[in-house]
């Protein structure tokens, strides 16, 4: 195995990787930006290095600095996690040139599959169906208009280098094309340093279904079945599950087999995800391949019992996986709820800030991968996803009930978050029945469901507020009686002191 691994990431995924490395007895070092000096992935790491900066570009995307740090730390391997440099071919090459094992696929397969257009070529070659769309990036608005007309609205604009919903826009009519095209380009440029955009046909009632691939360097390519990722907001996944309630075993196996075809076509090794869109008629189309660990990988770990991150380490070290495809089963059901620091009622605006209260749920059949702790201030510079809550059950129904109990017991105060949103969505009839597609959240009125819950709480909020103020009053009287030197105090200082020392309120 490796002498030491440097984890070139932050938050919950850095911790997930750290734990896998610890299980394998690989010494671990982490990096952190100036904004992450007190982050959980640093505090729980045995060894860590400041790489300076605050923005991703200055820190977690800074290839030179990271390679230099790996050398300083004596690391002979780097795990990139997801996001940041995980799909950056230059970074993988820089690792190679410096004698450091990049825990991921070969730079070549990464580059081919990282480019949406080239990856479509691969799919064609492998005989896997693809979605109608542009063969190369669109250079001008005019070209976009023509193409859109040709394949017909609705269409999707997508960042060529993209992922995670950034640089992605759904366009229903020509009037909206201009503003969407421009903002998609701007967002793509900002997020990936590559503002190329392409166009795709938008399918009817599409499901986002993806196949988890794990392949070693000895030609053994396995699938770990599918994940259903159709519950999306702002084109970003928020809830994932496995198995998919939409497909049957025959289709499941067919899609999985097509996933393996793609992976084999590029000689892929490492963990990877082949994403498909499946329309209402159960036609499936290759969408893209993510050549890295996926946010939602734990869903698959829970149902298959396979540790995907430990497998990544073993593969990178050249080990042969002693798995048999026939022994890999979907056992039970798992659901993941992504926990974002965001204002659900206000267009999902990010809500960074200080976490003043936190109780992570620890119920039977739940797992939480979190990157934060009580007292931590969530920085403004990075993704608003701060944790992933997972539930597991023998049946889908059991997994749903366990998730609802866990969400109910979750405490995360100080930043607005989407926990109540998950409670509402997972408890909805559509989700319970498993009859949603990617349009689900565009049509479902989660806002009024949340309002109902808020309404139900109202009397308690009134009582809580009044009691806190009552307490405040008492303390003021007390302070007034006891302070003889009151006149020398500035009024503002007094109020400050009352808040700080008597009410014991935090900010």
């Amino acid at each position, binding site marked *: 195995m490796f002498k030491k691994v440097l984890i070139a990431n932050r938050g919950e995924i850095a911790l997930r990787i750290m734990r896998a490395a610890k299980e394998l007895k690989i010494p671990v070092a982490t990096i952190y930006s100036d904004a992450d000096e007190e982050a959980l992935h640093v505090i729980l790491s045995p060894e860590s290095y400041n790489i300076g900066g605050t923005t991703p570009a200055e820190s977690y995307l800074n290839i030179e600095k990271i390679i230099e740090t790996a050398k300083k730390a004596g690391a002979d391997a780097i795990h990139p996690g997801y996001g940041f440099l995980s799909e950056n071919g230059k970074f993988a090459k820089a690792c190679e040139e410096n004698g450091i094992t990049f825990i991921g696929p070969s730079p070549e397969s990464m580059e081919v599959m990282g480019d949406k257009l080239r990856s479509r070529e691969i799919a064609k070659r492998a005989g896997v169906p693809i979605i109608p769309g542009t063969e190369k990036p669109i250079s001008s608005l005019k070209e976009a208009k023509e193409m859109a007309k040709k394949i017909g609205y609705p269409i999707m604009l997508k960042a060529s280098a993209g992922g995670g919903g950034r640089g992605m826009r759904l366009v229903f009519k020509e009037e909206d094309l201009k503003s969407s095209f421009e903002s998609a380009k701007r967002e793509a440029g900002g997020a990936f340093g590559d503002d190329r955009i392409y166009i795709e046909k938008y399918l009817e009632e599409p499901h986002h279904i993806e196949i988890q691939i794990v392949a070693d360097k000895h030609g053994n390519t396995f699938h770990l079945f599918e994940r259903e990722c159709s519950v999306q907001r702002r084109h970003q996944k928020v809830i994932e599950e496995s198995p998919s309630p939409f497909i049957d075993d025959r289709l499941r196996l067919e899609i999985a087999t097509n996933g393996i075809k793609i992976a084999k076509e590029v000689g892929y090794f490492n963990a990877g995800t082949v994403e498909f869109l499946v329309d209402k008629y159960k036609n499936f189309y290759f969408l893209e391949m993510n050549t890295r660990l996926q946010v939602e990988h734990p869903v698959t770990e829970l149902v298959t019992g396979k540790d995907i991150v430990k497998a990544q380490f073993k593969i990178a070290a050249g080990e042969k996986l002693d798995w048999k495809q026939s022994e890999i089963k979907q056992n039970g059901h798992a659901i993941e709820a992504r926990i974002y620091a965001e204002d659900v009622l206000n267009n999902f605006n*990010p809500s*960074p800030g200080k976490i003043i209260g936190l109780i992570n749920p620890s119920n039977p059949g739940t797992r939480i991968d979190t990157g934060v702790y009580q007292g931590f201030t969530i920085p403004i510079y990075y*993704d608003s996803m701060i944790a992933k809550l997972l539930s597991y059950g023998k049946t889908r129904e059991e997994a749903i009930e366990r998730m609802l109990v866990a969400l109910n017991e979750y405490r995360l105060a100080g930043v607005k978050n989407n926990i109540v949103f998950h409670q509402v969505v997972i408890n909805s009839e559509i989700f319970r029945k498993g009859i949603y597609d990617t349009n689900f959240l565009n049509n479902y009125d989660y806002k009024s469901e949340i309002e109902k819950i808020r309404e139900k*709480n109202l009397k*308690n909020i009134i*009582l809580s507020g009044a009691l*806190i103020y009552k307490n405040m009053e008492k303390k003021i009287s007390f302070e007034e009686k006891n302070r003889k030197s009151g006149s020398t105090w500035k009024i503002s200082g007094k109020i400050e002191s009352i808040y700080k020392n008597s009410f014991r309120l935090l*900010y």
Partner: protein
Amino acid sequence: MKYEIEIDGENFEIDLTERDGKFIYQFPDGERGEISLKELNKGEFFLKRGSKNYHFYSAKKGNGGEIVISHGNCTYEIKVSDYRSKILKKISGVEENVNKVLAPMPGKIVSVNISEGEEVEKNSVLLVMEAMKMENLIKSPRSGKIKKVYVKGGDSVEAKAILVEFFEE
């Protein structure tokens, strides 16, 4: 004692009296009962309303005597008006920002789409802010003429920072 409580902009009333170290509440609809509040940790509270239990967090917000309550993973912004808190408010001199547009979250200004002296419509985009990798459009809360723009592209701002000021109507 009667309290007037403003929750997310709406007003409510509650009567709260202390008797033998316990609190009795009464709502305008007649519902009354016994209630107690314990502070488990700094800002962490346990409310007992009869036999029912509620666990929540609370924190001070700004300087105007407002608090934020996080209950059942919902967040509520609260002001209380009574004799005392009216004094408090007077002392602290909170200014209402009807003519100002504040940053809804900490973040970075991507672009400023208006300039000083410009007339804007309600809901037109004033600025674009980036926070946590997402672009957020800051729209105008009303129509009017821009008096001052406090930020420029590339600036980092805190939540509640003044972004734009209008001339008074």
